[in-house]
């Protein structure tokens, strides 16, 4: 019994990725950038699950597991960095981090 065309799943995934990208470009606060990044990752995960369902194989799900593991590690290290930045610059403004200019 067919549920939904594959392209629709991919369209939803693309929408989530674009919203996440929009968020990364829009926000100046590093924490919100991280949240937008998580939205993008979930969009990618949805695309993998859709592919896994279309081909009837578990490989896509395994990939999503790896995505989650990677996201966990990334968030951990990223937040630690944010803490350091806040301690040194007393702000989480992304535009304050422009020492590498020029």
């Amino acid at each position: 019994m067919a549920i939904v065309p594959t392209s629709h799943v991919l369209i939803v995934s693309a929408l989530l990725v674009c919203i996440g990208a929009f968020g990364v470009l829009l926000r100046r606060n590093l924490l919100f950038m991280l949240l937008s990044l998580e939205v993008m990752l979930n969009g990618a995960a949805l695309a993998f699950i859709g592919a896994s369902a279309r081909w009837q194989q578990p490989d896509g799900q395994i990939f999503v597991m790896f995505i989650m593991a990677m996201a966990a590690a990334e968030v951990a290290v990223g937040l630690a960095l944010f803490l350091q930045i806040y301690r040194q610059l007393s702000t989480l403004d992304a535009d304050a981090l422009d020492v590498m200019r020029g």
Partner: protein
Amino acid sequence: MTQVFYAASALAVVAAFLTVTRSNALHAVLYLVLALFALAIDFLVLGAPFIAALEIIVYAGAIVVVILFVIMMVAGGAASGEQERRWLPPRAWIVPSLLAGALAVLTIGSLAAGGGQAITATTIGPREVGAVLFTTYLIGVELASVLLLAGLVGAYYLGARD
């Protein structure tokens, strides 16, 4: 099942949009949790119960919680909401909308053309996933654990007070 999928997807999209546009950090996190739950329902519909569970447990339950901790340590209070609003004047929305909009139009436009084969409702449970995971993708598992170890050590070192 089809309607469930579309409803959950719509909810996820709206919640994601609200996540990225809120000025209050806690509100944004809560909307993210909502989006994650909606996505978990999507995963369930698409026949991936294991991943749906993982999504809720790992993502919404662990990652988001960690983010919450840091938010409360760093950006506490209404003052941060004020600053966020100041950092989002109307003219800041132009370029991101253009770029992300162009990206969206391109991808969705090219996707909408081809229908693609329809997905049938079969569930691929934890048993099948585990079987492939620990045979074909065993090295990925090991590498992921190394990655998490690296993340652990890195987070500890970078977050330590000097």
